[in-house]
């Protein structure tokens, strides 16, 4: 691996991680298979003893329908997913601790099938299998 590439790889708990370097980036699972994008991140706002808030990054959100969109478009997307065979398309929330590494991609420590991040691709693959050969 080139040293310049190595220098850009970092663990998710590296000090000084700006979250714009994660937001919107493609996600790869432990087998380097595409698992969507980072559509959002979730914090817990925990009140300290003096009442001031402490923000703790807890989750990553990906999968279908996880990004902001108008209600009509969300309904249309739901209908489209149902046509594909995904009956209950919904965003997937993963614990931040499942993120193993961050470089050009966000690498997960587990398989995408374990977290449901492959639901749309699995449905499309099912359709592809039904198509007649040649």
């Amino acid at each position: 691996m080139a040293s310049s590439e190595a220098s850009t790889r970092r663990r998710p708990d590296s000090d000084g991680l700006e979250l714009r370097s994660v937001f919107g980036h493609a996600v790869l699972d432990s087998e380097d298979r595409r698992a969507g994008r980072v559509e959002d991140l979730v914090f817990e706002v925990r009140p300290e003893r003096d009442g001031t808030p402490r923000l703790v990054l807890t989750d990553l959100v990906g999968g279908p329908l996880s990004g902001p969109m108008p209600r009509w478009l969300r309904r249309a997307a739901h209908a489209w997913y149902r046509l594909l065979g995904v009956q209950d398309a919904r965003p997937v929330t993963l614990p931040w601790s499942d993120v193993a590494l961050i470089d050009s991609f966000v690498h997960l420590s587990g398989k995408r099938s374990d977290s449901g991040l492959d639901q749309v691709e699995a449905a499309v693959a099912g359709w592809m299998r039904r198509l007649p050969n040649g």
Partner: protein
Amino acid sequence: MAETRRVRYTDLVGRPVLDADGQRIGTLFDVVVERDGDEAVVRRLLVGGGSHRSPLDVIRRLRDLDAIPADALTAIDEDGLHVRARLDDAPGRRSHG
């Protein structure tokens, strides 16, 4: 004591950041997280003058970001993020670019 609640990154970014007098310091551009034991804790708020909603605005403001320590945060409500600092002497303000 208030209860723990959850908030999304997309709901925070672009929100106004207000000083102790309620004056607008700027808009939240990003947050910086650091490890604290087993957790990833927000340590700095990166605040700029624009809305950061459009790409042009991001480019325009990228060099004008200030970093405010997250422990200066006093509240997050419908008005925005409230910090202990005053507009003129916000602690830890620095050029980002």
